[in-house]
C-alpha cells in the first residue's frame, strides 16, 4: 500500500523498545471506582445546561418542515410581541457567519456540514433551523417559537433512496482510505467457487440518543466568548467557531467537564453558531438546550446502508473470493460515507477481494459518526454472510474463521502489531458453552420459545492522534497535577488517566490529580475513533521524559544521581532513580527543595502515529449471543451475551467492562429495535422521540459477560488499545446468527423485529 515504512520513526515503531510500563503492576490494571462518581450520584456534577449566569436568557429553535426550497414568508410579529421575548433571529437579522469548516478538511475542523448557517432563505433539509427565539424563560421561548408562521416554496428534493442510488457516486476517499480495493478477479473467482453466498443486507438510520440533549450556555465578555458546552471536540469547536465568526480563537474559552453521553454526536451543530450569534446580538448570556425532537432534526446520526456481501469458498473452507460493496445515504455537504467496508479490509485471508463504497446524495440532516461508524453495520453484513457460508460448508462458524485467519493484513500486507482473534473465539466459546449449540436450526425449543446461539467477529482499528499535549506540574510535596483538554463523557477517562499518570510518574494514585474538560488546559484533539486514551498516554509519556530531563538538570552535582544522563534514570517511588541500581535514588521533594523550587512544569506532545503506518493495528473480539424467539409471535429476546475482546492491556477492569457492555447494549439496540424512520415522501424524521425511537431498556438487557485477553500491544503506549467502540461491532450479526440458529429464518434487514421474523421463510 501507499504507506511509507518508518516515516517519522518514534519509540513505538520497529526497533523501538516497548513502553517499559506495559507489563508493570501498579495503579494501572486496578479496578478502581470512578473519581467523579460521588459528584454524579449526588447530582452535583454540573452539565452544560446547568451553569448559572446572571441575566441568563433561554432559546427555542424553529425548524423547517420541507426538505428543499425557499422560505416565502416568515411572520415573527406574534413571537416578538409574546411575553418575555427579547429577540427573534432569522436569516434576515442573523449576523454574517462564514460556512463552518467541514470535518477533516483541516485537523481542527468540526463542521458537520459545509452549509452556511441561517444566511439566506434557502432550505436544505427537513428540520433545518430557520428561527431562534430568545426569552427570559424557557416556557416563554417555547411558546413564542410556537407563534412563528412560515410559508415555503418547495422544490423537488432528493429523499428517495432507490432513486438516489441509481445516481450513486464514488466518494474521493472513505475517511482518507480508498473507496475501492481490488485484489485479483473476485467476480470470476466467486463464479467458479464450489461454495457461494451472495446476499444483500440493509441497515437503517440510527440516532445517538445520548440522554443529555445537546446544550450550551454561552456569553460574551467584550470580544471574548465563554462557552459551556456538551462536547467531545472542544479544541476543534474553538477553532471552527473562530473561523465562522472571524475572530481570534484565543478569545474563545470552552468548558465541558461533564458530557451526558456523546457516542459521536456531541460535536458541532447549528445550535453552536446560533447560540453564540444570539448572545452577540442580544448582549445577554444564552442557554440553548435542544428539545428532544430537535436533537433528531438538527443532529445527524448514522446513515442507512445497503450492502452486498458475496463469498466464494473452496472445499477446504478457505476463501477464493470476498466481495463487499454497497451504497449509503449522504448529503452533498458532508463527507462521512459510513465506512462499512472497513472490517473486510483487515479481517480474513482470501485469494481475491473486491470492495467498493458509493454514496447516494440525499437531502437530509448531515449524517455523522456514531459509535463504530462503518464497523458496526459493516460487520453485520460481513459476519452474517460468513455464518451463511459456514452453513453452506457444513462447518462450525468458529472453525470457518480459524481457517481464514490471515498471517498479515490482507489489504496492506503489513504485519499485525497484535492479533489474538482465534484466542477470543476459543476463550469465549468455552465460557459461553458454545459446544452446546446445535448446528441444526430450530433444534432447541422450550414451550413456545425457540432457542439459538450465534457468534460474530468484533473489530475496530487502533487510532492515536498526534498533536495533543499533556502538561505535568510536579510539586515539591510529591504531588502532581496532569492536565489536558480531554473529554470525560463517561468512559472513565479522568479515573483511568489518573492511574496511568501515577504509574508514569512513579507516584501513588492519591498523589495525582488529573484535570480535563476545558480549553484553558493544554491542547487536545478529540474524543473520537476510540483514540483518546492512546493519544493522551503518548503525550503523558513524552511529558514524563521532559520531566526526567528537567529533574536531572535540577538535581545537579550534589545529588546521588550526579553524572547520570536522562536516559539512565527513571521516575519511580516518588523520585528519580538510576535504572538497574535500586540505591541510587533521590526523591522529588529532595531534588526540588535543594533547587529551591516549589514545583516544575513540563509539557509533552503526542508524536506522529508512526506505529499505525508500520503495523496493521486493530482490536478484535468474538461476540456470543443466545436468543429466544417466540414461535407464536416472533418476538426475539436476547437472554445471554458474552463478548471476548483482544484490546491490548486493560487499564481499569471496572470502567473497561462498562465500556464493553455499553457498546454491546447499543449493539443489541441496533440488532433488535433501533431505527430512525425517514419519510421518503417528505424527508422528515417520523419518530423524533424516545417514546418512538426504541433504545434498550432494563428489560431488554440481560446480564452481559465480558472477558479480555489483556495481552499488551508492544507497539502502543502502555500496551493499550482504545475500547469505546469495538463493543458494538459484531453484535448485530451475533444476534441475527442466533435468530437463524433458533428459527431457521435469516433476517438481513435490521432491526430484527417480530414482524420480520414472522414473515421470513424458513431457509
Amino acid at each position, binding site marked *: 500500500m501507499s504507506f511509507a515504512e518508518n516515516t517519522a520513526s518514534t519509540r513505538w515503531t520497529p526497533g523501538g523498545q516497548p513502553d517499559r510500563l506495559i507489563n508493570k503492576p501498579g495503579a494501572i490494571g486496578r479496578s478502581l471506582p470512578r473519581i467523579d462518581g460521588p459528584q454524579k450520584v449526588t447530582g452535583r456534577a454540573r452539565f452544560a445546561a446547568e451553569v448559572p449566569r446572571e441575566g441568563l436568557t433561554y432559546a427555542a429553535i424553529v425548524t423547517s418542515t420541507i426538505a428543499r426550497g425557499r422560505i416565502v414568508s416568515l411572520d415573527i410579529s406574534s413571537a416578538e410581541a409574546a411575553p418575555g421575548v427579547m429577540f427573534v433571529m432569522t436569516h434576515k437579522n442573523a449576523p454574517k457567519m462564514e460556512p463552518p469548516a467541514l470535518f477533516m478538511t483541516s485537523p481542527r475542523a468540526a463542521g458537520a456540514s459545509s452549509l452556511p448557517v441561517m444566511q439566506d432563505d434557502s432550505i436544505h433539509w427537513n428540520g433545518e433551523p430557520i428561527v431562534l427565539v430568545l426569552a427570559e424563560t424557557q416556557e416563554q421561548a417555547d411558546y413564542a417559537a410556537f407563534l412563528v408562521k412560515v410559508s415555503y416554496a418547495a422544490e423537488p428534493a432528493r429523499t428517495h433512496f432507490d432513486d438516489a442510488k441509481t445516481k450513486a457516486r464514488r466518494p474521493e476517499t472513505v475517511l482518507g482510505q480508498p473507496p475501492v480495493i481490488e485484489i485479483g478477479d473476485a467476480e470470476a473467482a466467486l463464479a467458479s467457487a464450489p461454495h457461494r453466498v451472495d446476499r444483500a443486507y440493509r441497515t437503517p438510520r440510527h440516532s445517538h440518543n445520548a440522554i443529555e440533549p445537546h446544550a450550551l450556555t454561552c456569553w460574551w465578555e467584550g470580544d471574548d466568548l465563554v462557552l459551556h458546552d456538551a462536547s467531545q471536540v472542544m479544541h476543534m469547536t474553538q477553532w471552527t467557531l473562530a473561523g465562522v465568526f472571524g475572530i481570534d480563537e484565543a478569545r474563545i474559552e470552552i468548558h465541558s467537564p461533564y458530557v*451526558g453521553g456523546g457516542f459521536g454526536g456531541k460535536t458541532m451543530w447549528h445550535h453552536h453558531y446560533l447560540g453564540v450569534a444570539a448572545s452577540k446580538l442580544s448582549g445577554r448570556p444564552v442557554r440553548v438546550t435542544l*428539545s428532544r425532537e430537535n436533537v433528531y432534526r438538527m443532529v445527524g446520526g448514522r446513515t442507512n446502508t445497503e450492502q452486498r456481501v458475496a463469498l466464494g469458498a473452496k472445499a477446504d473452507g478457505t476463501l477464493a473470493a470476498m466481495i463487499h460493496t454497497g451504497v449509503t445515504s449522504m448529503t452533498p455537504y458532508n463527507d462521512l460515507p459510513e465506512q462499512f467496508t472497513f472490517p473486510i479490509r483487515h479481517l480474513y485471508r482470501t485469494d481475491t477481494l473486491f470492495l467498493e463504497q458509493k454514496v447516494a446524495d440525499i437531502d437530509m440532516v448531515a449524517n455523522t459518526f456514531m459509535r463504530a461508524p462503518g464497523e458496526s453495520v459493516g460487520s453485520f453484513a460481513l459476519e452474517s454472510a460468513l455464518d451463511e457460508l459456514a452453513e453452506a460448508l457444513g462447518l462450525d462458524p468458529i472453525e470457518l474463521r480459524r481457517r481464514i485467519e490471515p498471517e498479515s493484513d490482507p489489504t496492506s500486507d503489513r504485519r499485525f502489531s497484535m492479533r489474538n482473534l482465534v484466542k477470543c473465539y476459543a476463550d469465549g466459546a468455552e465460557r459461553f458453552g458454545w459446544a452446546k449449540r446445535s448446528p441444526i436450526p430450530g433444534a432447541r425449543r422450550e414451550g413456545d420459545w425457540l432457542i439459538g446461539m450465534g457468534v460474530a467477529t468484533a473489530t475496530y482499528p487502533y487510532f492515536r492522534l498526534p498533536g495533543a499535549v499533556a502538561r505535568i506540574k510536579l510539586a515539591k510535596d510529591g504531588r502532581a497535577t496532569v492536565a489536558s483538554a480531554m473529554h470525560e463523557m463517561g468512559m472513565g477517562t479522568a479515573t483511568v488517566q489518573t492511574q496511568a499518570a501515577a504509574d508514569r510518574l512513579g507516584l501513588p494514585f492519591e498523589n495525582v490529580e488529573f484535570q480535563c474538560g476545558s480549553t484553558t488546559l493544554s491542547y487536545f484533539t478529540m474524543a473520537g475513533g476510540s483514540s483518546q486514551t492512546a493519544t493522551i498516554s503518548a503525550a503523558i509519556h513524552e511529558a514524563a521524559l521532559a520531566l526526567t530531563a528537567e529533574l536531572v538538570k535540577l538535581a545537579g552535582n550534589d545529588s546521588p544521581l550526579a553524572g547520570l544522563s536522562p536516559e539512565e534514570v527513571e521516575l519511580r517511588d516518588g523520585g528519580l532513580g538510576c535504572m538497574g541500581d535500586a540505591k541510587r535514588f533521590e526523591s522529588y521533594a529532595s531534588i526540588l527543595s535543594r533547587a529551591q523550587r516549589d514545583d516544575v512544569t513540563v509539557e509533552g506532545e503526542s508524536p506522529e502515529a508512526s506505529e499505525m503506518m508500520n503495523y496493521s493495528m486493530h482490536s478484535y473480539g468474538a461476540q456470543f449471543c443466545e436468543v429466544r424467539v417466540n414461535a407464536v409471535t416472533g418476538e426475539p429476546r436476547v437472554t445471554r451475551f458474552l463478548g471476548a475482546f483482544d484490546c491490548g492491556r486493560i487499564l481499569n477492569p471496572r470502567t473497561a467492562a*462498562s465500556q464493553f457492555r455499553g457498546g454491546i447494549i447499543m449493539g443489541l439496540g441496533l440488532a433488535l429495535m433501533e431505527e430512525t424512520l425517514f419519510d421518503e415522501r417528505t424527508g422528515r424524521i417520523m419518530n423524533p422521540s424516545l417514546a418512538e425511537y426504541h433504545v434498550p431498556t*432494563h428489560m431488554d438487557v440481560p446480564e452481559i459477560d465480558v472477558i479480555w485477553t489483556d495481552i499488551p500491544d508492544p507497539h502502543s503506549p502502555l500496551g493499550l488499545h482504545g475500547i469505546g467502540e469495538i463493543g458494538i461491532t459484531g453484535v448485530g450479526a451475533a444476534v441475527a446468527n442466533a435468530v437463524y440458529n433458533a428459527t431457521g429464518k435469516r433476517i438481513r434487514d435490521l432491526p430484527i423485529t417480530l414482524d420480520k421474523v414472522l414473515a421470513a421463510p424458513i431457509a
Partner: protein
Amino acid sequence: MHFTVNAQSHELTLDVRTSVLDLLRDHLQLPGTKKGCNQGACGACTVLVDGERINSCLALAVQYQDREITTIEGLGTEEAMHPLQRAFIDHDGFQCGYCTPGQICSAVGMMAEVKRGVPSVLTDDLEAETINLTHDELRERMSGNLCRCGAHNGIIEAIRTTVAAEGGR
C-alpha cells in the same frame, strides 16, 4: 407559590406553565434532576413526591405545592451518601452520569412500592405477603428509566445489593 423541596420551604412567583422539573432546575438551582426528553419517555427527571416516584417533566409545579418533593440532592451528599448512591459507585451503575439521578430516585421509589406490595406486570402472585424481587421484576420495574451508556447491569446489581442489605429479597 409555595414548595417544599428536600425539607426546605420555598416561596416564589412562577409562570403557571412551569413544570416541577423546570422549577427545580431553573428556579431553585437544583439541577441534579435531569432533563432528557421533557416528555415522560426517559425517566431522567424522576423525583420523589411524598415518597412516590414521578416524572417531574410531566408535572406542573402549581399542582405540587405543599407536597414533599425529594430530589437527588436531598437523598444524600458526597460526605453522607444514601446507600443506593454508594452502591451505584461500587457497581459502576453509570458512565456519563446523566440518567443517574433519575435512576437512583426511581429505585428509591420502586423499593418503597415493593415494600407496600404494589405489583408489577410480572408479579405472579398478587396475594402474596411479600413480593419476590427477582432479576426480571427489578428490570421490569426500572424499565421506565433509560440509560444510553449501557450501565444497566451495574444499575440492577446496585439496587439488588441495596435491597438485600436492607433485608429484602
